[in-house]
């Protein structure tokens, strides 16, 4: 499938193509405006939203500043509750661990809960190379997978598809993966959802292994949290014998009480709901290390008021693996300006308010993380070596709407400017845990030359005065579009008109003592 992001064109080229697709623009505009208005109403219900937001930012900052402490704590708690914790420094290691765990079960088909982390490491492709089929179970992810497409939105991965396109994909492709689409399937959303229900139910009822991500991990208790709407998450988290969760190290929150802050912020910011239909929380296998490995009843499943159902007597998977993933997160952590991107709780509110995302669509960002958050997260996780990644910090108008709406107060414009400077000027970074100095990115030479020229001119008032006069007198001769390396810039922008007189000359004439300067 075309799931790979390697070799993608830079953002401006991909976006230029996307903006010419009027169906895509229509689908996106409808979706982002609908959710934007709903979200504002949901947020207005909580009188102390700003306080909740600053609490969330502070909790995440505390976590990030002491991440080693909290990771060790979550590892201990999950292990004590009967889970097994693995660490993966990069995507290849994470894929190797998961592949080996699935192989050990003897299964060749696994179910997946929607997970951006596994998109990031391209786990499905890695499993495919090992002869293991990974089936996506979130409706939108299913649409994307059947359509051999890529997700384009954090929360609604198939946001770029309308109902007619979805019907066509279901009709054409469902049979290749299992139960075919019902005869005479129309494009009514209820019918399409029913087709997905029937197609996936077969898989849910026989699944032995599932792979998930997590929205949060609670350090003090080892509890993992998955937030969803459809029930596909609950199916994967409770029916199979083995559950493997691949979770970014930044997803940890310190305490059970802290979780309350995020459970209030996330649904309202994401789907504009007071609470999403389903939230699942589990701690290891529910079997403390001290309670032995017995799987029969008897570990507390008494009768009457004291009865406690535990995973040990059949509630949920008997085997639980947690894979803690770095893959560029510690490099991001090392950047004191860019670090705040790791606060992100993947709500997608920033996508829905972004004028650039609305027109360019999610695919142009060339990563599972599109929109404003993607523009700062991707170049930090992957570095800025590729043309695409170097172009991402420029995929913004810096209007600031993303910062206003962010429930964890990530100053996205600040990080964008910081990363632009890094791309244009080069400088010290951490890559793969090592300090390095990167050179200015190619393709930004004209920008650098212009900046250098501007600096020199501004430092030399006489030169500036002369330049301004020349510009004013020749204004009729100026082209509408720039030649040479500046051409791309004027593809989408009009050059500012030069006034007949410079401000300095005007000031000198009307307020000055006859002498310019």
């Amino acid at each position, binding site marked *: 499938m075309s799931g790979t992001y390697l070799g993608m064109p830079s953002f401006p080229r991909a976006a230029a193509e996307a903006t010419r697709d009027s169906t895509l623009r229509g689908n996106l505009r409808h979706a982002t405006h609908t959710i934007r208005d709903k979200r504002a109403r949901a947020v207005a219900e909580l009188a102390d939203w700003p306080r909740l937001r*600053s609490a969330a930012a502070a909790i995440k900052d505390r976590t990030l500043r002491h991440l080693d402490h909290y990771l060790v704590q979550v590892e201990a708690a999950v292990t004590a509750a009967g889970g097994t914790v693995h660490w993966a420094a990069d995507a290849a290691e994470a894929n190797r661990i998961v592949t080996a765990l699935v192989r050990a079960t003897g299964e060749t088909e696994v179910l997946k809960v929607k997970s951006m982390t596994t998109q990031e490491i391209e786990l499905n492709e890695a499993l495919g190379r090992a002869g293991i089929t990974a089936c996506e179970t979130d409706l939108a992810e299913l649409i994307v997978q059947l359509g051999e497409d890529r997700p384009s939105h954090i929360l609604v991965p198939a946001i770029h598809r309308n109902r007619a396109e979805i019907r066509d994909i279901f009709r054409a492709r469902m049979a290749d993966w299992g139960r075919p689409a019902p005869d005479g399937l129309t494009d009514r959303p209820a019918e399409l959802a029913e087709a997905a229900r029937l197609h996936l139910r077969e898989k849910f009822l026989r699944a032995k292994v599932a792979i998930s991500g997590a929205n949060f991990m609670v350090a003090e208790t080892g509890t993992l949290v998955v937030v969803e709407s459809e029930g596909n998450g609950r199916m994967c988290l409770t029916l199979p014998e083995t559950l493997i969760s691949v979770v970014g190290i930044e997803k940890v929150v310190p305490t059970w009480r802290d979780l309350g802050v995020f459970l209030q912020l996330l649904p309202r910011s994401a789907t504009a709901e007071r609470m999403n239909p389903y939230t699942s929380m589990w701690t290891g296998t529910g079997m403390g290390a001290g309670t032995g490995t017995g799987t029969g009843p008897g570990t507390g499943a008494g009768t009457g008021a004291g009865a406690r159902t535990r995973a040990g007597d059949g509630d949920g998977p008997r085997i639980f693996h947690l894979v803690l993933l770095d893959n560029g997160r510690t490099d991001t952590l090392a950047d004191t300006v860019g670090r705040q991107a790791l606060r992100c709780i993947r709500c997608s509110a920033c996508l829905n308010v972004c004028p650039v995302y609305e027109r360019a669509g999610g695919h142009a960002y060339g990563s599972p993380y599109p929109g404003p958050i993607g523009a700062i997260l991707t170049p930090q996780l992957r570095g800025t070596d590729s043309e695409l990644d170097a172009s991402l910090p420029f995929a913004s108008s810096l209007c600031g709407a993303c910062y206003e709406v962010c429930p964890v107060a990530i100053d996205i414009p600040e990080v964008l400017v910081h990363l632009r400077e890094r791309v244009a000027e080069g400088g010290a970074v951490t890559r793969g845990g090592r300090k390095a100095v990167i050179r200015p990115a190619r393709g930004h030479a004209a920008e650098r030359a212009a900046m250098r020229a501007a600096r020199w001119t501004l430092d030399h008032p006489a030169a500036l005065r002369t330049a301004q006069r020349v510009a004013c007198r020749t204004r009729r001769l100026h082209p509408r579009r720039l030649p040479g390396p500046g051409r791309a810039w004027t593809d989408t922008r009009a050059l500012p008109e030069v006034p007949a007189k410079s401000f300095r000359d005007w000031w000198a004439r009307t307020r000055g003592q006859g002498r310019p300067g």
Partner: protein
Amino acid sequence: MSDRETVLGRVRRALADVPREERPEDVPVAGERLRGYGERTPAAAAGLLARNLADYRALVHRVSAAGLPALVAGLLAARGARTLLVPEGLPERWPAAAVAAGVRLCPDDPRATPAELDAVDSVLTGCAVAVAETGTVVLDGGPGQGRRRITLVPDHHICVVRVPGQVVDSVPQALERLDPTRPLTWISGPSATSDIELDRVEGVHGPRTLEVVLLEG
């Protein structure tokens, strides 16, 4: 070096700007958080719970203890349900009238296969706590709630909430009452998706019908 040491080592080097003596609790976390939004009487909280549940298209019923068995029997009869899953610890009285009307009880059994659960018409449970401000019921596997999967696979879930004892105002108050070591399921309305043009459709993989009974007194 193991990946564990690699990752932890990178984290520590990345945090070179954090003073050595700083402890996690030294990082201030904004003042006292609100535990809820407004003081409510128990009756007002129950009313808000009912409204918010209905807003997410759960069917809400209010009944006295004496009327519960007849209500349950009626809800099952209205759907033509012939089989009912019941968890351990569920009060025997709750499904009694349905049983008298011919509904067969299927006790929650760890050995039951998912396909067997799929063949059951309805499930009846209690809950651990309900959250008024969000319209949420929380199940923790305690008495009368059963394993997580029994409220997931059958297409019809009837959940009984004791009012006012099990109703709290807010998410933080619910967390205070819950034990994180238990498997927890928070349910706010029936299964739903908005993945197709953001049109909300109820019923994808979880129960398509959620009926919440507020048991008063």
